[in-house]
Structure formats: C-alpha cells, structure tokens
C-alpha cells in the first residue's frame, strides 16, 4: 500500500529533487574562480623546485653533494661542481632540473642534507616550449615568474 502511494505521488522523485534544491544554497558554492582568485595551496605542497640561497650573503646553500641527483627516480637532476683550490671544497657551478620529467615525489628534497633544494608552493609551471621546462641554476634560484592575470 505504501509502495503504491509512493508510485502514484512520485515520492522518490520529489525526494531526489528536494536534495538537489537543498544544495542550491549559494553558500554551498565550491567553484574557485581560478585566475582571478588564487587558490591557497597547502604548506607542504610540492610544486616548483627552488635552490635556496643564503639570505645573508647571497651564496647558494647547495654543497654540490649530488645526493638529490642520486635520489631522483627519473635522473633528471644534473649537478655540476668544481673543486675550489683555496678552500679545498666542492663548489656548485651548474644545476639543471628537468621539470618535464619531474613527478614531484619529493625524494630530492628529502635527500638534501642542507635544505638547499626545496619544492615550493609555486604551481604555475606551464611553458611554451619543452626547453622551457629544463631549468638552470638561475631559474631555480629565482623561481618561476608567471604572468599576472589582469581582470
């Protein structure tokens, strides 16, 4: 009998429609207006890589130990170094990071003993060319500069 009434009065239809209408409330809107409204990514977000420099003297923190290159599953990091004869230490000369192959697993930043290499919160990494994804030392130190969106 109950089933009959449900069928006659389309109860399940109205039940479903009521759910839909409940969710129409403007305060439930989830859409992010992306370029106009910048999403806030998490603190631990793994995005664009950065080579940190010492803020006091502007020198790189990297000690050219090559651990990141060894840790990388895709072998996309190339660290170039040469030995400074005066201080008897290895010094970083070049650093290449191929972002087109990077899967942002974070193993390189885990491996870094001096927190020089870091995956930052920058997420706008698009490039017009494939070469644009192969970042050199300068690019890694300065970080990406996405074109700001004009409303």
């Amino acid at each position: 009998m109950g089933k009959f009434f449900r069928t006659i009065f389309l109860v399940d239809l109205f039940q479903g429609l009521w759910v839909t209408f409940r969710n129409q409330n403007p305060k439930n809107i989830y859409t992010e207006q992306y370029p106009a409204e910048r999403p806030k990514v998490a603190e631990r977000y793994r995005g664009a890589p950065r080579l940190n420099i010492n803020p006091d003297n502007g020198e790189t923190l990297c000690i050219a130990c090559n651990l990141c290159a060894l840790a990388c599953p895709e072998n996309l990091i190339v660290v170039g170094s040469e030995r400074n004869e005066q201080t008897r230490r290895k010094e970083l000369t070049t650093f290449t990071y191929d972002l087109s192959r990077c899967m942002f697993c974070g193993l390189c930043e885990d491996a870094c003993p001096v927190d020089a290499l870091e995956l930052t919160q920058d997420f706008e990494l698009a490039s017009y060319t494939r070469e644009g994804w192969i970042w050199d030392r300068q690019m890694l130190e300065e970080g990406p500069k996405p074109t700001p969106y004009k409303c």
Partner: protein
Amino acid sequence: MPETTFLDSTELVLNMGPQHPSTHGVLRVILKLDGEKVIGTECVIGYLHRGVEKIGENRTYQQFAPYVDRMDYVAAVSNGLGYCLAVEKLLNIEAPPRAQVTRVILTELNRIASHLLWLGTHALDIGAITPVFYCFREREEVLKIFENYCGARLTTHAFRVGGLQYELYDGFEQQVKAFCDMFLPKVDEYEELLTNNRIWVARLKGVGILTGDECKEFGVTGPVLRAAGVKWDLRKAQPYSGYEQYDFDVPTGENGDTYDRYIVRMQEMRQSVRIIRQAVDRIPAGPIGKTPKVIKPATGEVYVSIEAPKGELGYFVVSDNSTQPYRMRVRPPSFVNLQALDRMVRGGLVADVVAIIGTLDIVLGEVDR
C-alpha cells in the same frame, strides 16, 4: 543474389572505446551483438601500458615508491601502503604504531575518495548527473586532507618504507573528524538520490550477475566478491597494519548484481568512516619511523597483499640482495576483475555493458600498468 528478408538479424560487431566516456579510461571492448543482445565480448587493453614492473626492476626500493601511485591513481595511498608493506615484509621490519594508525586513517580516507569517484562516474554513466558533482565536492575534502598532510592530492607518495616521511600536521585530527561528521549525512543524501530511484533500480537490479563461485573461479575480489555474498575482506581475513584493532563490519550483498555492488560500496564508505573515527582517537605518540638509508633486503621473495578499494592488491617482490628489486610483480585487482566482464555481459543487453563496466570499478592505469 541471396534472398534477404526484412529485419534480417545478422551478428553485428560494435566497437566500444577506447575513447568512450563510460569505459573509464582507454578500454576497448569489441562487442558481438545479436540485435540488442550481447553474444560475446573481447577486451583490448594495454593502451596505458607503461611497464611499471620493468621500471621497478630498474629503480631502487625507495625510488620505485612514487611509481606505484600511478597505477591506480584514484587510490594512490592504498597502492603505496601495499608497496611499503611488501618491502617491509622483505626486510622483516614493521612500521611503528603511530605510523600504522596514520596509514590506516589515510588509506580509509582514500577508500572513501575512490568509492566517491566510482559513485559519481557510475551514476553519470547510468544517466544520473547530479551525484557526480556532490561526490567530487566531498572527495575534494579528502584530497585537501591529503594535500595538507603530504603536499600532493592525487599521486600522494605519502608513505615510505619503514614508516612515514611526514609528521601529522597541526589540526589533522580535527580536520579528519570534521570530515567524518560532514560526510555521513552526505552518504544518506546520495542514497536518497539513488537507492530508491526507480530508473536507478531498473537499470541495476538483476544486471550483470556474478555468483560467489564464479567470482572465485575468476579470482574476482573486492566489493564485487562481497556483493555476491562472500564475506571476505583481507582487512579481516589477514589483518595488516593493525586492522585487527578496529571494530567494523564487512558488508555483503545477496544477488551479486550491480545493485548489490552499489549497496556494498555505500556501506563500505560508512564502515570506513567508522574505522577512521576509531583510529583518530587512538593515534599513539611516538616515532613515525625512519626510512633505512639503504634498503638491501636479503635474497628472497614475498607476496604481500592488501585490500585496496578495488580488491586484492598484491605485490610479489623478489630480491637478490641488491638495492633494486630483482622482480617486482603487481597483482592488480582491476586487471583480474575485468576478466569477468565477458561472463557478466554475455546474454545481456548492450545498454547494460556500460552499467557493468562502471560497477566493476576498474581503473585502466592499473589494468595496464
């Protein structure tokens, strides 16, 4: 010239996919039809084959961990858990309790995310468009927790061999609890939309029946097996990562049709919430484990499997006492489950094929690896 009759019914071969929206990826099914009836199928797979097993042989144990996330990319955390457990078994170590409880929470959240994605897309295939938006909205909350915890939303790389990489962030418990409180009424809401919906019931009841014996014959596991009435869940049968401490039920169906699979998955989401609630309250203090700097297991081989959202996900790892696995075999649940597709659609209508593929919950990244 042969005499043709009106309404001549010859066999028709219909190509479904690989670019078909309801094959959930790049699956190609060649359907042999007699009118509306399916009289045979053949699956063509491999479009997403990336050679994960070969990659595994050429990476160190630590380096391979991010790749497993990319097999079943909607349940990356489960994949990572299975991999870590397999290597830990090979090393004969165990993650510390704090790491284990965290793993359980994240894996169950991932199960919810995976089931939500399944529910949304499956409903979309059947023709109900509303649930997909709601499901993605709630899934977003899970992904936010993942992002806060480990920095990535989808291919998380959350766990490491031997424990965790990241300590829990401040407010993790509150966020997870808030999600649980928010989520349970939402499941009721989906059920309001679908469970008694007559189109939904008409499309799903009695479609694609796979009995328990047939499931065992094909090796089908996961919600498909449980919907057929077999109360088997690896979390109960062979508990790993401390699942024996939690109180939860294994929902089962009766008929093994697509409707039962839907019901089982809805119940599983509720049970996952139940597990998460218990786990959040008992996160012990202590270390989160440390990845060994060099992972070099003794010569040997292990097979370790977990209950992934799709079914039994197993890793068969052979070590030759070096830092790289000698052989890394992944037993993908989707691949094995897809094999039963032919049995389920044969004799049914062509429109049901979509419902059956949807209800198998395959992810082609895992089928092809």
